[in-house]
């Protein structure tokens, strides 16, 4: 018998620098196509919902189908404001990084609808376990609840200045605000996923009514924590929303390095027996509706939901990244699901609740607000003008109380060793 020589499949994206963008691999169904299942529907009802893309807004900005959320125009306008503010924040802080006033920054441009709409759906007391790409959670929380960190606090953290509530300890954008329901961000990918499941299990153990929601990127779903989280969630049925932000890229690796194109990230959840949705992440109404559905499901003790948000990382991975090295220039302009801000704006204009003039005014207002805030924040210092923290400050919070061996190290410093 003739032997077939084996070969390794090494996936490659359709396009690379120099090529024209090609998103033909993203199958986009018409808006309004999908059924909205009952909160306790059996997992078999999610086979299609985890494979297609749930969409509410069609290309003309008209809402369609069962997933249309019941939401007032005012709520939508708040969402629009929070998205515009998040984008203005990102742009401004990236500029400040370019000026050398901080070491590092990451934007969420193109993905704002996901964090903004979900922050609006969850309640005070719930807990987000985010990644570094959900600044919109904090910005929205400040806007609608006024609790926890403000945008100003976020800026101070990015600048590591004397207003930094994390005392300069963390890399910029690794925010932490318990009062805002925003768990401390880790630099190690995926760890938050299991923690969110544990937090939700605790809420169940204590017969509480709070829910958790966590985020992970497409690339990071490869980490063991993702799979451990899904296993625990499928066994204990805790009240948690398991978001997967599929923004197509993980630094230079396209999403095909994290998942086989025959399936979707959401469909993995079905394999674990967890209801799973795959949703247009750039459609504010769809994000709102799916988040609300999952939150209600969790709050009614029906258990976890996985939501894959189909979106696109419009900016570079971080201030250290140059995406022109690995993907076509202007790929973001060809992204077939458009831009979340543009789409919600079009919808509101269609409803007769908004106008281009109002939108221009909003963008200008947010830009100015952010500019003014960032000027204030810089008065408290920056990386080029760091606050004079006593050296021993770095030993605070290593433990609750400073143990003797750290006291000794402080003494060594004080002796001028």
């Amino acid at each position, binding site marked *: 018998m003739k032997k077939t020589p084996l*070969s*390794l499949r*090494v996936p*490659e994206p359709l396009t*690379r620098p120099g090529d024209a963008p090609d998103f033909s691999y993203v199958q986009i169904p018409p808006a309004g196509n999908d059924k909205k299942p009952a909160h306790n529907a059996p997992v078999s009802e999610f086979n299609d919902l985890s494979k297609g893309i749930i969409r509410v807004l069609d290309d003309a900005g008209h809402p369609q189908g069962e997933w249309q959320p019941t939401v007032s125009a005012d709520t939508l306008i708040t969402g629009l404001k929070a998205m515009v503010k998040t984008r203005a924040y990102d742009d401004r802080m990236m500029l400040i990084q370019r000026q050398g006033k901080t*070491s*590092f920054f990451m934007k969420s441009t193109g993905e704002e609808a996901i964090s903004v709409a979900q922050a609006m759906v969850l309640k005070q007391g719930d807990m987000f376990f985010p990644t570094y790409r959900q600044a919109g959670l904090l910005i929205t929380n400040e806007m609608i609840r006024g609790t926890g960190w403000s945008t100003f606090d976020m800026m101070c953290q990015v600048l*590591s200045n004397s207003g*930094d509530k994390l*005392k*300069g*300890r*963390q*890399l*910029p954008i*690794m925010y932490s605000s318990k009062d805002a329901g925003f768990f401390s961000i*880790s*630099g*190690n*990918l*995926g760890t938050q996923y299991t923690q969110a499941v544990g937090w939700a299990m605790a809420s169940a153990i204590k017969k509480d009514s709070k829910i958790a929601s966590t985020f992970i990127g497409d*690339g*990071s779903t*490869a*980490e*063991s*924590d993702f799979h451990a989280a899904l296993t625990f969630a499928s066994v204990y049925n805790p009240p948690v929303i398991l978001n997967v932000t599929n923004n197509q890229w*993980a*630094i*230079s*690796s396209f999403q095909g*390095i*994290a998942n086989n194109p025959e399936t979707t990230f959401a469909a993995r959840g079905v394999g674990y027996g967890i209801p799973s949705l795959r949703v247009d992440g750039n459609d504010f109404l769809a994000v709102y509706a799916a988040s609300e559905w999952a939150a209600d499901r969790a709050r009614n003790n029906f258990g976890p939901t996985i939501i894959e948000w189909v979106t696109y990382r419009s900016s570079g991975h971080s201030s*250290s990244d140059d995406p022109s*090295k*690995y993907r076509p220039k202007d790929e973001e302009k060809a992204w077939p699901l458009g831009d979340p801000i543009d789409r919600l704006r079009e919808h509101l204009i269609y409803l007769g609740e908004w106008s281009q003039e109002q939108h221009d005014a909003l963008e200008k207002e947010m830009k100015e607000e952010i500019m003014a805030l960032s000027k204030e924040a810089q008065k408290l210092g920056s*990386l080029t003008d*760091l*606050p004079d*923290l006593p*050296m021993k*400050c*770095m*030993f605070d919070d*290593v433990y609750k109380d400073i143990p003797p*061996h*750290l006291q000794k*190290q402080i003494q060594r*410093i004080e002796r*001028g*060793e």
Partner: protein
Amino acid sequence: MATMNMIQAINSAHHNAMETNEDIVVFGEDVGYFGGVFRCTEGLQNRFGKQRVFDSPISECGIIGTAVGMAAYGLRPVVEIQFADYCYPGYDQLVSEAARLRHRSAGDFTAPLTVRMPTGGGIFGGQTHSQSPEALLTHVCGLKTVIPSNPYDAKGLLLAAIEDDDPVVFLEPKRIYNGPFEGYHDRPLTPWSKHPDGEVPETHYTIPLGKAKISRAGKDVTILAYGNMVHVALEAVKVSGIDAEVIDLRTLLPLDIDTIVASVEKTGRCIIVHEATLTSGYGAELSAQVQENCFYSLETPIQRITGWDAPYPHSQEWDYFPGPARVARALVRAMEA
């Protein structure tokens, strides 16, 4: 000879190794098309093809675990962990598997893999882009741990690591990828092109594992250092004017204890410098071995100048970093005592 920085030297080592040995495969996060976030594997995929050089999913457990399996098959994987801070999800595969395979199978299976990881701080990377986990590696019997201090050594040591039949962790001090950083963050970095160790042969050569190098001969104090701290130590010698001998360990395990003992017996004084935190750091092992071997030659207590026992703080990183002033003061104390 060519002028290379450390990134280029590491890249060149990959080229030489892969040209002559078809069993070498290279993978890790962003290492394929992009050539790695620090560019160490640039051009390899183009040259050697996607079957041998590819991007991996973001799973350090997966990277090291599959490398163990490939090595068991007979390949020689050379894998990259994007930052040493991210080796922990792969730690079980490294400690319980790669390091133990030969012993538990009585030599039936082996794991000749090389795991490269950028280590150390000084780049304002905060606590998850700055750690120096070498002590967590040297504590593991069955693993070898290597850390070069310059481009010439990086290439020779990496080739030796790849050719070694045991699993080797190859730590790359990222602060000196582009130049010998002496510890002054507010001064411009001298590029490797201005340093003799930036002269690197384009052809294959190895530097044996387990051999230290005397970076500076001296008679009064022995400084044990490795990686970026070698340059800090050399600067401290300059600043203090004390005639210290600086030993660049190059391989932490197996340790070249003979070179150390010969030096400490000569100088009677020993300072250990590392960037990692103090308690149970690799300096503790060095200190114990110097004490065990050189007790009667020691004229003053061994000193450890290290990072403090705190997570690497973003804005206070230069308070944390054991810079040349601290090492120089230790030298002065060693002579006074």
